[in-house]
């Protein structure tokens, strides 16, 4: 395979709070290849957003990246001058946020804000920027872009605003687009449209996408590879198809089990993950998932499992792994939730 465009190596980001040090990101490493779409999944507080912000060095106070490397085309973003990082932000690596309502400046015209993204990096002159803005809005499928550029953000619908944000992210043709829960604030139907748009742009423009989400369905629809985060660490990563068919970490398995389905059998209760996400001030000993894990061993209480290859191209950090849990501990089978898999009143394709 080609060389990775972005390499994150042993990233640690900590927040100094009044109660102690919160290790929001605790030793995260992954690669992103050109044109790839990578999903980062986890609950609230699992460190997925902080990971994304750390890549662009945008961690808010009192957070601090304490160690690690973020190599963009082999240059460490964490060692660059502020000036150089600012140059990369928005030009090489763009980011879009959860709530398009609050991510657009309410008092400036939408078109101007997109133009500004280009002007800030001296990528175009005034007239070029205006022309390209209309072209970008057309590309993200906003109807009548010539008129929409003159609208203020509050005159656009939620879906249109997020499209405008995506247009802004793509303004300088970045090689990486980081999307931090871009569909969470939108209606379900609009969510699907935005995901489809991101997928198309990924194929058409070859922009690599890092999709931060808590929604396994979003990953299934858009990504080719997925990273599952828990308590600031990666617990499992691999190709989406493989992870959805054969998750090896009990947390991934539980996430997939906890997705509500319209076609679930009536007697089947929705399975939630017991307990709460761990307190990152005092993370649990051993495996961080052990207090909520249905398949834990004695070893899980004391020893931290390393992230190891469990299948070709798939890594998980678990002493048990789901293959063994299924064989020896009677774990249920999973129902495939990927789009195009079973639907209707049938119990679904059992894997």
């Amino acid at each position, binding site marked *: 395979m080609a060389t990775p465009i972005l390499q994150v190596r042993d990233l640690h980001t900590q927040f100094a709070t009044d109660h102690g040090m919160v290790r929001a990101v605790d030793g995260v490493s992954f690669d992103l290849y050109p044109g790839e779409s990578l999903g980062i999944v986890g609950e609230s507080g699992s460190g997925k957003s902080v990971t994304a912000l750390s890549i662009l060095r945008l961690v808010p106070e009192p957070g601090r990246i304490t160690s690690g490397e973020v190599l963009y085309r082999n240059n460490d973003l964490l060692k660059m001058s502020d000036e150089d990082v600012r140059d990369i932000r928005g030009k090489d690596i763009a980011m879009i946020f959860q709530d398009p309502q609050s991510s657009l400046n*309410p008092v400036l015209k939408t078109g101007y804000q997109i133009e500004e993204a280009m002007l800030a990096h001296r990528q175009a002159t005034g007239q070029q920027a205006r022309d390209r803005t209309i072209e970008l809005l057309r590309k993200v499928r906003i109807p009548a872009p010539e008129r929409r550029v003159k609208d203020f953000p509050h005159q656009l619908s939620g879906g249109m605003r997020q499209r405008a944000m995506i247009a802004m992210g793509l303004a300088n043709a970045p090689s990486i687009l980081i999307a931090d829960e871009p569909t969470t604030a939108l209606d379900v139907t609009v969510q699907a449209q935005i995901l489809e748009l991101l997928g198309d742009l990924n194929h058409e423009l070859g922009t690599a996408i890092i999709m931060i989400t808590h929604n396994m369905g979003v990953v299934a629809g858009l990504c080719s590879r997925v990273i599952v985060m828990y308590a600031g660490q990666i617990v499992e990563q691999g190709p989406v198809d493989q992870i959805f068919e054969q998750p090896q970490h009990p947390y991934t398995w539980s996430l997939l089990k906890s997705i509500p389905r319209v076609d679930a059998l009536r007697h089947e209760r929705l399975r939630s993950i017991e307990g709460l996400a761990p307190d990152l001030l005092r993370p649990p000993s051993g495996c961080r998932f052990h207090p909520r894990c249905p398949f834990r061993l004695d070893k899980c209480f004391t020893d931290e499992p390393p992230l190891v290859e469990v299948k070709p191209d798939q890594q998980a950090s678990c002493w048990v792994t789901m293959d063994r849990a299924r064989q020896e501990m009677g774990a249920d089978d999973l129902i495939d939730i990927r789009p195009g898999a079973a639907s209707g009143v049938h119990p679904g394709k059992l894997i």
Partner: protein
Amino acid sequence: MATAAAVIARPIEPEQASLWSDAWRRLRKNRLALVATVYLILLVAVALVALVWTPYRMSAVGVAVTYAGPSAAHPLGVDELGRDILSRLMVGAQVSLVVGVGTQILVLVVGVPIGLLAGYYRGWFDTFISFVINVFYGIPDILVAMIMVFLLGPSLTNIIIAIVATRWMDMARLVRGQAMSLREREFVEAGRAAGARPFRMLFGHILPNALGPIIIQATLGIPAAILFEAFLSFLGVGVQPPTPSWGSMANEGVQAIQYAPHMVLFPSIALSLTLMAFNFLGDGLRDALDPRSRR
């Protein structure tokens, strides 16, 4: 048929309801603010006319019997040197407007960048600025202004500088507060993620969002500055003779209040009306620009 077709053919243009057009619509509905605006436009016109023409030269003495009350030739009477009061009031309007508007322009130039930087960057600069602001609030403003006028000399420019020295803190503190709350908004984070420089962030994104409160503050600052100048002139440390100021005219009038009450009356009325007009306009702007009072 033809009319119906024309109606249908017209593309439906959504109304461009920006913050400003919204605010203008609400301001127009506010009678008091509208009357105040008309008065202020007239006042500016009068001050401009006074640049080239006044009924009498404002410093011409003895155009009528001293202390003479209103008459056809001198609608507002004459003062203790026999100078036409209407002519002097017209020139005094120039002084008041220059002081009021000039002060607020300088206050904006000083207060807005300081407030933006302190609120956006926080840290030691903010601590330092907040300390300086509190020190300035602690010293009596009339004392600061009088000492500055004594030291620099009583020219119009120096009076403006003296008033700015006692009035910049309100603006700086307001803008600081605005910047502090706006910096936490997501569009600021999004802007930084897009690689915007701090200068662009501050003046291109944060400032436009704070413009409403800033305009209100500046508008309400104008009458305060005019009053301050009138007060300084009343005390004799303001604009120096022969240039008339409403404050110094009132001072001269007070000495003659028992036999020529018109001398204190007319400058005071002009001053009061102008102060009221600016205050009503400021209040009107506050209602129009405040999103919570949106109707």
